[in-house]
C-alpha cells in the first residue's frame, strides 16, 4: 500500500486549499465551502490514521463520524447567518460587511 504520508500530503493540500479559499474569496458561501474542505481534510487524516495506526476502538472513524455531524450543524448555522445578513443587505460578500469597525 501507499505510505501514510501520501494520504497526509493529500489532506494537507486540501487543508491549504481550504485556507486559500478562506483568505482570498469574497463570497461568504465560498467561505463555507472552504471550511468544509478544511474539515474534510481533518477527516481524511483521522480515517487514515485510524487505518494505519490501527486504533482498536476505531477512534478515528468515530471522530470522523461525529465531525460530519458537527460540520452539518455548523453549515446550517453558517448558511442561516449568511441568509440573515443577506436578507438585510442583499449581499453575500464579506468585504461589504463593515459596519462594525475601528
Amino acid at each position, binding site marked *: *500500500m*501507499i*505510505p*501514510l*504520508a*501520501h*494520504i*497526509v*500530503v*493529500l489532506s*494537507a*493540500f*486540501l487543508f*491549504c*486549499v*481550504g*485556507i*486559500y479559499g478562506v*483568505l*482570498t*474569496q*469574497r*463570497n461568504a*458561501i*465560498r467561505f463555507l*465551502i*472552504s471550511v*468544509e*474542505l478544511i474539515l*474534510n481534510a481533518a*477527516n*481524511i487524516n483521522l*480515517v487514515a490514521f*485510524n*487505518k*494505519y495506526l*490501527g*486504533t482498536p*476502538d*476505531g*477512534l478515528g*472513524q*468515530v471522530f*470522523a*463520524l*461525529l465531525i*460530519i*455531524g*458537527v*460540520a*452539518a*450543524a455548523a*453549515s*446550517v*448555522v453558517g448558511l*442561516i447567518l449568511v*441568509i440573515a445578513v*443577506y436578507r438585510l443587505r442583499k449581499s*453575500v460578500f*464579506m468585504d461589504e460587511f463593515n459596519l462594525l469597525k475601528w
Partner: protein
Amino acid sequence: MNAAVFYLIAGLIAGSAVLSVTVRDIFHGAIWLALTLLGIAFLYFYLDAGFLGVIQILVYVGGIMALFVFAIMLTAKIGDHAIRQVNRQFWPGLLITATLLAVMLKLVMDGPWMRVQASGVVTDLQTIGRSLLTGYLLPFEFISLLLLAALVGAVVIGKVKR
C-alpha cells in the same frame, strides 16, 4: 494497482477541491465541492471505512450540498459573472497559503509517516457501534445537544415574523 487507485482518487479530490474555490461561478464551485466530497467518500472506501463513506455520501453529498445549493439560490443571481469573487488580499492570502503548504509538505515528508504501513486492524461497523455506545457515549450524546442547539439557532434566526 492499489497505489494507482489512490493517486487517481487523490487527483480527483485535489483537482476538484482547487476548482471548487477558484471557479468564478459560486454554483459551479458548489458542484466541484460535491465532487470533492464524493472523492473523499471513495477514499474512505479505499481506506476500508465503508460505513463512513456511505455516511459521507448521505450527509454531505445528499444533505449539506442541498443546503448549499439552496443557500446559493436564495442569495446569488446565477451566472452573475461580472462580480469579482476574489478579494483585495489575494496575493498576501496566496503567499500565506503557499508558505503553509510548503511547510506542511516538508514536515509530512520529513515526518514519521513515510515509513508507517497500514496495520492489519480493520474497524468494522460493529466496532464503531460499540464504541459509540461505550467509550464515546458522552460525545455521542453531546452531539445531539449540539445538533439541537444548531437547529434551534437556525430556526430562531431563520424564521421571519409576518
